[in-house]
């Protein structure tokens, strides 16, 4: 069986793997979190609680799927579909291995940024159409947060783009043959990491859905599978950000040859997924204005300086 970029088999495998991994992450996250909090976590359904995902899925599929009568029906139904579509589309340009991927795109990085910015609509429409004050507050916060952090996300990537001289993610991976980009671009890496967390609004930057302050934020009114799509979308976003970090800063599929490339890719992304879960376990949520001023007053200048220095070094060598 040979895999090649863009064949139907590859696309199917990638789609299936990504969705299954995202669903399994529900279980992985709960178990890891509980280990870090000296608990055991879900361990009842199946061996080690592995089938908890199935139980959750059955539950969420059979829940009543309710559209509030006061909601704007069209946008309400559209919002969860947007987030799933946008994130699944982003996976199209990610090179998972030397010959595994969906499309070869010369504007891969830009495509992902575009998709990330379109993802903001899902959150905003979800909150706006719910006609609920908590949802509205959540989506207001989400809009400001996502628009701001997109900026630093884009700028922090440009160092990598400048070093490899291409927007094509496969070329970027191949350019890391000698040295992984997280060494020359360490600041860019850190900014991208922070912006990635904010962009997928996971803890500690889950201000749009801060349970303690505004119920569940933008998805307060959602139930059943529509809520499930927001939920899985969040985990898909986590997988996406982890694989992006792997591709952009940690050499993608490269690694010693005793393991196949795709396994290296999975291992590296897995480490980052675990790291994001650790972030959730360890770090408290900042206040909203702290988040904004941290972004605009600290991360933006830092990423600009990083870009300038990178450009100067490239020009001088």
């Amino acid at each position: 069986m040979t895999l090649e970029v863009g064949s139907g088999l590859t696309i199917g495998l990638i789609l299936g793997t990504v969705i299954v991994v995202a669903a399994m992450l529900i279980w992985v996250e709960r178990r890891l979190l509980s280990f870090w909090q000296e608990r055991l976590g879900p361990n009842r359904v199946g061996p080690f609680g592995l089938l908890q995902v199935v139980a959750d899925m059955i539950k969420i599929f059979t829940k009543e799927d309710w559209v509030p009568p006061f909601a704007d029906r069209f946008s309400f139904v559209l919002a969860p579909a947007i987030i799933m579509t946008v994130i699944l589309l982003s996976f199209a340009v990610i090179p998972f291995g030397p010959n595994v991927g969906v499309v070869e795109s010369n504007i891969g990085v830009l495509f992902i940024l575009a998709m990330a910015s379109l993802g903001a609509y899902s959150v905003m429409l979800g909150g706006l159409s719910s006609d609920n004050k908590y949802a509205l507050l959540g989506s207001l916060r989400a809009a400001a947060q996502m628009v701001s952090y997109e900026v630093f996300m884009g700028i922090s990537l440009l160092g990598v783009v400048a070093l490899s001289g291409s927007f094509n993610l496969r070329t970027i991976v191949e350019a890391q043959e000698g040295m992984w980009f997280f060494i020359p671009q360490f600041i860019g890496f850190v900014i991208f990491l922070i912006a990635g967390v904010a962009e997928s609004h996971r803890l500690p930057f889950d201000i749009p859905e801060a349970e303690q302050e505004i119920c569940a934020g933008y998805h307060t009114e959602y139930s059943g599978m529509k809520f499930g799509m927001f939920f899985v979308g969040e985990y898909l976003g986590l997988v996406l950000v982890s694989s992006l970090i792997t591709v952009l800063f940690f050499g993608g599929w490269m690694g010693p040859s005793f393991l196949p490339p795709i396994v290296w890719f999975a291992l590296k992304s897995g480490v980052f997924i675990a790291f994001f879960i650790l972030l959730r376990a360890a770090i408290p949520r900042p206040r909203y204005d702290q988040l904004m001023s941290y972004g605009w007053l600290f991360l933006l200048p830092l990423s600009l300086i990083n870009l300038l220095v990178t450009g100067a070094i490239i020009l001088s060598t």
Partner: protein
Amino acid sequence: MITLFYLAGAIAVISTAAVIVQTNIVHALLYLILSLLAVAVVFYVLGAPFAAALEAIVYAGAILVLFLFVIMMLNLGQHTRDQERSWLSARMFVAPGIMSALLLGQFLNVMSQIDQDMTITRVGVMEVSALLFGPYVLAVELASILLLAGLVSAYHLAKK
């Protein structure tokens, strides 16, 4: 490729028309986003991937998010919808219709003089950047000064 072009073009035209006649402002914005994305596809098909990506990131991804943000703050309800509907009378379309017809005629006139079988040249990121920082560097600098002035004045207004 050419069918994709016509498809995206048709979507863009229809959704732009929908923006005008839609009375629910959020739906109108959604159509506007759709129209911008369709234009991005048109750009891509015509061989300008960079312009397409920027169209999606900047217009659909940032500017319209801010539009939506403002709409959220304004608390528009049924009464604005009724107001919109009362404005949407046929009388209102006369002047814009005449002007658009003039523009269309001019456009068709220009288009008829262009060679029919143009070859599509792909303009990648490199070419765009080389142009921006080569022959058009003055325009870029002027635009950046304008934006800087805008930024400073926005800061000044926000401080009050």
